[in-house]
C-alpha cells in the first residue's frame, strides 16, 4: 500500500479531513522552501504537493505565477525538485505529490522521471496539462503503477467523462472547485456539494477539493463535503510576504495548524 492510500485510510478511520498543502518547490530558494515544507508537515498537512516551477504556467493565477518565477530565478528545475523531495523524505513520512506541467517531465524523460521520482520518495504526480487523452504516452513507458497519477475533475466535466477519469485515476481525485486559474475568489459550496456527489457515484477514491480555498472557515465548509481540502495560493502568498522574515517557517506552520484545526471531524 503506498503512502497516499495509507494516509487516507488512517484519516478516514480517525474521522479526520485531509489537509493537502501546495507550495512551489524552490520558492524563494531551495533551503527556505525545504524549511517551509517541514513547517507544513509540522503544522498538520497530511499530503504535500510540491509544485514544479514552469516558465509558462497557464493554469495558475498571479500568486503561483510569481512563485514559479522566484523558484526559476533561484535555479529550480525538475531535478532540483526531486532532490528536495529526497531530502524531505529523509525526515518525513508525509505523502508527496509532484504537481507539474507536462513539458518539464517530457524533457526529463518518461522512464527517468518515474524511476527518479520513486527513488526520491514521491508517491504521486499530478500533471495539470496532461488530460487522459494524452497520458498514455507517459504511463505506457512506466514499468509499474507505484507512482500514482492523480487525476483532475472540474465543474465543466460531464458525467460520462467523470466516470472515465475516475476509472483511470489512482491515489485520490483532485476536484477543481470552480472555473479559472489557481488563487482568487472563494469556493462555491453549492457547486462543490453537487460535484462531489457526482464523483462519489463513480469512484471510491478519496476526493480532495481545491482552488480558491484560503481561510480556515472556507476550509471547514469545504471539508464537510469532501475527504480533503487543498490549500495552495494562501501558503504561497505567505511565502511571498515573509520570504526574508526569519520567522517564515513558523508563520507557515501556524497557518497550516489553523487550517487543519478548522477541518471537521466526521464520525
Amino acid at each position, binding site marked *: 500500500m503506498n503512502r497516499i492510500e495509507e494516509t487516507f485510510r488512517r484519516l478516514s478511520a480517525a474521522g479526520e479531513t485531509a489537509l493537502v498543502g501546495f507550495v512551489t518547490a524552490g520558492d524563494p530558494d531551495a533551503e527556505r522552501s525545504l524549511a517551509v515544507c517541514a513547517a507544513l508537515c509540522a503544522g498538520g498537512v497530511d499530503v504535500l504537493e510540491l509544485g514544479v516551477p514552469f516558465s509558462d504556467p497557464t493554469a495558475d493565477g498571479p500568486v503561483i505565477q510569481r512563485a514559479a518565477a522566484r523558484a526559476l530565478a533561484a535555479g529550480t528545475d525538475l531535478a532540483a525538485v526531486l532532490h528536495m523531495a529526497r531530502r524531505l523524505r529523509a525526515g518525513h513520512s508525509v505523502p508527496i505529490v509532484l504537481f507539474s506541467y507536462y513539458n518539464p517531465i517530457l524533457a526529463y524523460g518518461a522512464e527517468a522521471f518515474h524511476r527518479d521520482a520513486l527513488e526520491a520518495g514521491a508517491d504521486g504526480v499530478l500533471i495539470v496539462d496532461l488530460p487522459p487523452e494524452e497520458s498514455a504516452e507517459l504511463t505506457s513507458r512506466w514499468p509499474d503503477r507505484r507512482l500514482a497519477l492523480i487525476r483532475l475533475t472540474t465543474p*465543466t466535466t460531464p458525467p460520462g467523462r467523470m466516470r472515465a477519469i475516475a476509472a483511470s485515476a489512482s491515489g485520490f481525485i483532485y476536484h477543481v472547485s470552480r472555473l479559472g486559474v489557481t488563487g482568487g475568489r472563494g469556493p462555491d459550496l453549492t457547486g462543490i456539494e453537487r460535484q462531489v456527489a457526482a464523483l462519489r457515484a463513480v469512484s471510491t477514491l478519496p476526493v480532495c477539493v481545491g482552488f480558491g480555498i484560503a481561510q480556515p472557515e472556507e476550509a471547514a465548509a469545504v471539508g464537510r463535503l469532501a475527504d480533503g481540502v487543498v490549500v495552495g495560493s494562501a501558503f504561497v502568498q505567505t511565502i511571498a510576504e515573509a520570504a526574508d522574515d526569519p520567522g517564515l517557517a513558523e508563520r507557515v506552520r501556524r497557518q497550516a495548524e489553523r487550517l487543519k484545526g478548522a477541518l471537521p471531524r466526521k464520525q
Partner: protein
Amino acid sequence: MRPSPAPAPAALPDDRGHFGPFGGRYVAETLMPALLELEGAFRRFSADPAFARELAGLLADFAGRPTPLLFAERLSAHAGGAAIFLKREDLAHTGAHKINNTLGQVLLARRMGKRKVIAETGAGQHGVATATAAARFGLSCRIFMGVEDIRRQATNVQRMRLLGAEVVPVAAGGGTLKDAMNEAMRAWVDTVDDTFYVIGSVAGPHPYPLMVREFQTVIGREARAQILAAAGRLPDALIACVGGGSNAIGLFHPFLEDGVALIGVEAAGEGVDSGRHAATLGRGTVGVLHGSKSFVLQTPAGQIREAHSVSAGLDYPGVGPEHAWLKETGRARYVAVTDAEALAAFRLLCRLEGILPALESAHAVAWALREAAARPAEAIVIVNLSGRGDKDLAIVAGPEAGMQEEKTA
C-alpha cells in the same frame, strides 16, 4: 531543389488531433469539454453548405477576396532568376490574411451561441481581425497583447479600440505573443462557459491547428487556380514566413500532394547563433507549449525560452504542430532570415514594387530573393505577402531599425 518523396498525408490530423507525434490536446481538464464541443461544432458546421455559403459571401464582400496574385516584375529582375509572384494577402480587409480565419471562427462562435470572444495577438493583426469580425457581428471582444508588442505596434492597438475591443496589456515574461497567449488561455479557463477563444495561428490544442488551417487554405486554393490561369502550370516553390505558421499552412496545404517545394521562413532575429532569434523549427526541440506538442525553444530542463524578432508576429518560441510534421517528413523545408535581411527586403519591395510589406512577410520576401536567384528564369516562385507594413513604419523608420541593420549587417 525538389522536395523529398516522403508522402504528405493531407488527411492529417487524426481524430485526436495528432500529426504523427505532434499536435494533440495538452490542456487543463477545465478546457477539455470546451475543446470537444468546439471540435464537434467545427466538424458539423464545416460540413454544412449553408455555413460554407455564408463564409464565402463574407470572404468576398467583407474581406475582399479573392486577393490578387501579382507578378513582381522588377523584384524578379532584381533577383535575377525565377519569376516571383506575390499572393497579395496584404490587400485583404484589415491588411493581412488573419481575417480569413477570424471570420470563420466568429461565424462558428455565433452558431454555437457564444456572445463573447477573446484572442491573443502579437503584431496586432490577429487582434484587429478578431475585433473586426466581432464588430461585424456585435460580439463583445477582449484582446490580450504583450506590453512590448503594445509599444511597438501602437497603431494596431488604436485600431482594436476603435473597433470596440478591449485591449488587455500583458506584462508577464517578455511582454510578447507567448505571454499574451498564456493570459488568453487563463482568461478562457475562467470564462469557458460563455466565451469563444479565437486562436490566430495553427498552434494551440486540437482542433485549432486543423480549424485555422481549414479557414486559411483559401489562400492556397486561390493561388493554385491563379497560377494555373497565369502560367498554365504549377509553381516550383512556395515561400511563406512562419511564426505560428498560419499563412504558410494556408498557402502550402492545397499543394501538399503536388511536387512543389514548400519553404517556411522563420525569424533568425540577430542570428540563429546569437541566442536571440525565433527559429523554432531550425533550432528548437520537441516540447509541449500552449496545448500542443511541437518544436519549441526551450532549455534542456524544459523551460520555454524567450524568442526574439524585430517582427512581433514571428516573435514566438513555438510553432504549429503541422509544420513540425512537415519538417520531420521532409515535405517542407524551413530556413531563417535575420532582422537586418528582413528590413532590407522591406525597403526593396517598397522601392521596386510599390508595396509596403509587413515585417513578417518581408522575411519571406528576403528568402525569395535568394531562392529566385538560385533558380532558372523559367522557374516560378510564389511568395505569400501575408500582410501590409503600415503597422511597422515606426520600427522601420526608427532608431531600432538602424541598430538591427548595423548589428547583423
